[in-house]
């Protein structure tokens, strides 16, 4: 006969395990600030468990590249941008998500160069793809309308774009679709660096060249972000392989870093980082990286 105490303790253990699994799947109540709606969202604990080592890799906003290009008095060129009318050709969530990122980057670029008229076509494409990717519930009608109105306003579009894409990203994570969110981010990075590389090839502007060289670490982060999905399908495998292929070329880029003690301004809650860095990138690596970025970008928008 089994020890009754052992049976009792085992029963408690089983009950707690059942309750814990239920607690992990408990919905997260979230109040939407713009509408006041309270929604229930399922937490993607699988994703959280994968990140249990608690290391996350960030990808900077693609709009930083657009601002940086503008700063250097580069002439605007529509030739580099993706045609918003092509959104109709994307019939898989893989292509739709990548091109959501592409179009967001192009919208930022157009806005920063004051090309408001051209923005409407991109907004229409973005709105259509939001529906196709099942992201309508991520934002309210008010938020989309606010963004539409900001197309002709000065400077607010970027705020609204980053706000909406953050909501998309959070929604995708909470609904167990992290890889779709990762693809949107990947599309944004690929497009912004494709634009940067084409402009560098044209202008040979030193600062822009350095900025392209500095993408070395960000690309490593992007590969880390996508590597979880490497074996999901051939398309993910090819995408990651293409990014790794570009990363190999970045191994030839020299990045020098020199630490200097920061300066703190307590009253401004500001630290001035005085450390310096520079990048040494050869014409060979510039051309090779630019070509590989162009090829990858053209593949994802085709």
């Amino acid at each position, binding site marked *: 006969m089994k020890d009754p105490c052992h049976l009792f303790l085992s029963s408690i253990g089983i009950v707690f395990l059942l309750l814990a699994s239920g607690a992990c799947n408990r919905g997260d109540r979230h109040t939407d600030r713009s509408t006041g709606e309270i929604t229930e969202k399922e937490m993607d604990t699988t994703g959280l468990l994968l*990140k249990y080592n*608690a*290391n996350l*890799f*960030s990808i900077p906003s693609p709009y930083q590249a657009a601002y940086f290009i503008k700063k250097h008095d580069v002439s605007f060129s529509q030739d580099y941008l993706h045609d918003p009318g092509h959104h109709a050709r994307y019939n898989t969530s893989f292509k739709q998500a990548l091109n959501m990122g592409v179009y967001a980057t192009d919208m930022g670029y157009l806005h920063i160069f004051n090309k408001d008229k051209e923005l409407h076509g991109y907004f229409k494409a973005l709105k259509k793809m939001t529906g196709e990717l099942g992201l309508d519930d991520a934002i309210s009608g008010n938020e989309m309308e606010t963004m539409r109105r900001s197309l002709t306003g000065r400077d607010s579009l970027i705020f609204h774009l980053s706000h909406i894409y953050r909501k998309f990203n959070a929604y995708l994570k909470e609904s167990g679709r992290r890889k779709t969110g990762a693809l949107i981010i990947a599309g944004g990075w690929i497009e912004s660096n494709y634009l940067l590389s084409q402009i560098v090839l044209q202008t040979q502007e030193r600062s822009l060249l350095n900025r392209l060289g500095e993408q070395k670490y960000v690309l490593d982060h992007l590969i880390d972000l996508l590597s979880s999905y490497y074996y999901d399908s051939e398309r993910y495998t090819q995408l990651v392989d293409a990014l790794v292929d570009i990363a190999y070329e970045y191994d030839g880029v020299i990045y020098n870093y020199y630490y200097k003690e920061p300066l703190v301004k307590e009253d*401004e*809650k500001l630290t001035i980082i005085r450390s310096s860095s520079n990048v040494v990138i050869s014409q060979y690596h510039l051309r090779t990286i630019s070509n590989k970025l162009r090829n990858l970008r053209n593949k994802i928008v085709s």
Partner: protein
Amino acid sequence: MTILVFLCFSGVSVAQDHSGEVPDQCDTLMGGDYISDDQDYVARLNKNNTARFHTVFYGDNRYCIAVCSNIEDHPLIIKIFDTERNLLFDNTKHDHTPYWHLAFSSTVACVIEVKVKAEKHVDQLVKLLIGFEKPSYLQ
């Protein structure tokens, strides 16, 4: 068994569990002049009560970082290191402020470490927002 389950449910309902809730107070810390990255960075503290966020801050930019959580009993410790593990920022020297601004003249790859000092594992999420300041030459 029914009594046992009832007791267990009672235990769970009394102890409020925020472990799965994503904190949402970070936005108010960011400030209107900053454009955030297109994603929130949310991580669960590991067994050492630490979460790490690897990022790149571009030169000629000013950033705001904000960190928030639903942890009530322990202040968040925020440290920023460069890739050589030099300490660039430590919020324990600034009253555990949950947000701070950083100005970079050169591009620096960094690790933002968020931790709590507790004897036991704090099974909670922490959220990091990173925003860059809209360039002044466009204002």
